[in-house]
């Protein structure tokens, strides 16, 4: 049995541990045969014999784990690290992934505690401004739980690169002079200036006190994240006792306070706002219908949608295109046919010789129906009730625009315009005389988007052919189906 005596703080350089571990491994010493100790305590055990340290390869995750765990104060960390190295070398290459192993679990626990200590250092260091012969120095005193100072320092360098600052701790001092980080001797207690200014000043104390809501006292939640260990060096912590003590009575006062009379200006503002609303100019008819549709609650779809997507286009358009309902993009933008199906429609119209800007484009249903799935919305077909509830708005649009021809894109538009289930594939390409005027039925462009590429080209051709019928109707007389 041998003893390896190491310094407690290896944060500046962990080579002593690495060397000893490599030597012990090349001597083929099982973990029971060697003991690592921090602080070089006296012992009857002999030191490790000289041996050439053979190079050693370890899985990448191990180095990271070692570098963190070694900063922990636990006496057994060196022994556990050696145990793990031994097992990695002797047939347990996958050990690192086995978090359920007692040795791995402990080391990962130490690494976690060290990471947390670094994080808390970033969070809880408080700088005061002191003047020295070089100007303003941002000075802090802090007590980390482990040997983490060097690991914590780059964060402050990156954040406050343009300031001079120094953090003094019982495990050393770190100093930044705007160019280099340097490390110095330990400081056991805060010097006077760190107590005087900066975070202990009124600004921070006032903010900390004010942002607290006394009606929500949860002391355990506070101490879980801000353990008392750190309180000594947190100037705001001095207020905690008082804040807690007074919380109960402050809450009671708030609960018991009766509704208070409104200040005088409240009524004046209310009057001014009411007047502004009354004096708004009346809207042109289609605009007025659009505005009412925006507030529609005739069916439940409005609750989940962003907004009603009303039709758009010239209000005397000869051609009206009616789709099913807005999709994700249309719902966000508040305009019909701006998503992928809309782009396909634009292309098809162009190929059929129709300018979209001359058509009035709308949908049978004005609100987007979908099912939320994570961060996406999955399109759902509107049911007959929703279609019929929304008929009101489509009828109003048709009555205003009075198009010569309506193109119904897909089954839902067909259902809305004919008041019956249509068979798109059988009835497409024909012109029907309906209560709404002449209607041509064809597929919805999103149907094309769902087809495999080889079928899509063919179906796209048929779609354009249907639209071309519309173009012919508008330029001359055409036979109407029964």
């Amino acid at each position, binding site marked *: 049995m041998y003893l390896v005596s190491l310094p407690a703080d290896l944060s500046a350089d962990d080579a002593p541990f690495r060397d000893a571990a490599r030597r012990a491994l090349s001597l083929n010493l099982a973990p029971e045969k060697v003991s690592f100790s921090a602080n070089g305590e006296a012992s009857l055990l002999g030191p490790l014999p000289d041996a050439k340290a053979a190079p050693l390869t370890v899985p990448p995750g191990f180095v990271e784990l070692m570098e963190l765990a070694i900063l922990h104060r636990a006496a057994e960390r060196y022994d556990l690290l050696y145990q793990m190295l031994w097992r990695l070398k002797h047939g347990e290459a996958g050990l690192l*992934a*086995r*978090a*359920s*192993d007692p040795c791995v679990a402990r080391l990962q626990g130490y690494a976690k505690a060290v990471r947390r200590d670094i994080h808390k250092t*970033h*969070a809880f260091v*408080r*700088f005061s401004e002191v003047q020295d012969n070089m100007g303003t120095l941002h000075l*802090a005193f802090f007590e980390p739980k482990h040997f983490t100072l060097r690991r914590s320092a780059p*964060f402050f360098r*990156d*954040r*406050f*690169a*343009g*300031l001079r600052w120094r953090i003094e701790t019982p495990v050393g001092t770190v100093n930044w002079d705007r160019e280099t980080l340097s490390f110095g001797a330990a400081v056991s207690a805060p010097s006077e200036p760190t107590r005087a200014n900066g*975070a202990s000043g009124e*600004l*921070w104390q*006032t*903010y900390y006190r*004010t*942002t*607290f*809501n*006394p009606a*929500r*006292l*949860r*002391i*355990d*939640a*506070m*101490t879980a*994240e801000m353990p008392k260990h750190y309180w000594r060096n947190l100037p*705001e912590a001095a207020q*905690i006792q008082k804040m807690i003590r007074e919380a109960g009575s402050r809450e009671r*006062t*708030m*609960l018991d306070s009766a509704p*208070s*009379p*409104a*200040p005088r*200006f409240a009524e004046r*503002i209310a009057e001014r706002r009411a007047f502004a609303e009354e004096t708004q100019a009346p809207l042109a008819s289609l605009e007025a219908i659009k505005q009412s549709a*925006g507030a529609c609650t005739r069916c439940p779809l*409005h609750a*989940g949608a*962003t*907004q009603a997507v009303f039709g758009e286009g010239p209000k005397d358009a000869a051609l009206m295109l009616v789709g099913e309902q807005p999709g994700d993009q249309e*719902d*966000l*933008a*508040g305009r019909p046919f701006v998503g992928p199906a809309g782009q396909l429609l634009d292309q098809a119209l162009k190929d059929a010789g129709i300018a979209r800007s001359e058509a009035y484009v709308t949908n049978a249903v004005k609100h987007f129906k979908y099912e*939320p799935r*994570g*961060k*996406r919305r999955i399109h759902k077909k509107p049911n007959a009730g929703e279609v019929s509830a929304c008929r009101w708005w489509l009828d109003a649009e048709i009555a205003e625009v009075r198009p010569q021809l309506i193109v119904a894109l897909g089954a839902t538009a067909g259902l809305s315009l004919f008041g019956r289930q249509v068979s798109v594939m059988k009835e497409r390409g024909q012109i029907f005389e309906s209560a709404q005027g002449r209607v041509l039925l064809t597929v919805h462009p999103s149907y094309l988007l769902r087809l495999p590429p080889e079928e899509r080209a063919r179906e796209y051709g048929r779609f354009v052919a249907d639209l071309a019928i519309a173009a012919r109707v508008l330029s001359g007389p055409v036979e109407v189906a029964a």
Partner: protein
Amino acid sequence: MALSVLQKLEILADAAKYDASCASSGGAKRNARGGGIGSVTGAGICHAYTPDGRCVSLLKILLTNFCIYDCSYCVSRRSSDVARARFTVDEVVGLTLDLYRQNCIEGLFLSSGIARSADETMEDLTRVARTLRDAHGFRGYIHLKTIPGADEALIAQAGRYADRLSMNVELPTEPSLTRLAPEKSACEIRVGMASTRMRIDEAKDDRVAYARGRGRAKPPRFAPAGQSTQMIVGADNTSDADILTASSSLYASYRLKRVYYSAFSPTGHAAAALPSRPVPLLREHRLYQSDWLLRFYGFGVDELRGSMPDGMLDLAIDPKLAWALQNRDRFPVDLNRASKEELLRVPGLGTKAVQRIVASRRSGRLRLDDVARLTASIKRARPFLTALDWHPGASLDHAFLRDRLAPQPVQLPLL
């Protein structure tokens, strides 16, 4: 008499404290090594905790608490008798930089009452962010509130300077909003969130295109830490089930980073339309737990609804345990064979524990003790799983399982 900056801070931090969000996570990584001051590491930092258990990460203040609106849940509504104040741009900038240099904050969370108009307020908020960034080289975190109804171009500006934008839906349903905030429009709020989402998507697409070598100038970022929202819980009578349904639709529609739930609590400036008692904080906590189940544990909102017979979450036990007790036929789950998705549904096992179980079992089958080292809640998990040396036996079917697993009431810790 003119108010001092400290007096204004007391008024305007008090008015802002009811907003639950104070996160500083996300954001584009950057630091001050090339000049300026401040950094964002991606992970948020809570610089302090107040005795309400809330994290203090950002300087959370209003620019002004003068407001023309009269939303009954809000302490700053025009009919409230609170003291009023208004910061200048320079005062906010100075406060932010002072506290930042002392390492008390990660940055600024700036909101505002609507003193005159949505546009003017949005412009003022953006001016603060722009001054911090351009005049002072501030690289810390900025969260700006966007104001419903503000001009699109102003919101586009705000997203250039802010890490995160948020617009509050305020209440879970439109009828509640209409009742408690009759001058606000639910549609206007949703349109605002939609427009922020479109801009975030657009900026991301542009940057992807740029990374692939298209376009010469690097496109500017737009709110790299995304957008969030908040709703007040318990000011109206919406059930937990309906709240969660509303949230899942908000997450899907606007790709929100977070929906914050804020249990209604008295402000000392009561409005007649509101309940006079506060909502138990535990309800808020259960909603957050359920929100997590929806986002990270593969639960659907309808599944959760199924374990809330009266539409309300069980306050005594966590929602995953409540669901498992209602669905005992799906248990026990075999720790050594079950899929990740099945493991995520075991009460007491978090996402990290599940990852570790899946990784650990590759090198040998697991015993109960092994799992006990991977989770802090083995007692809660035990009845729902089998391991190499463990089977819950009939205990899974016991009627009193719920009582046994429900945490015992404890006296509040004294300090």
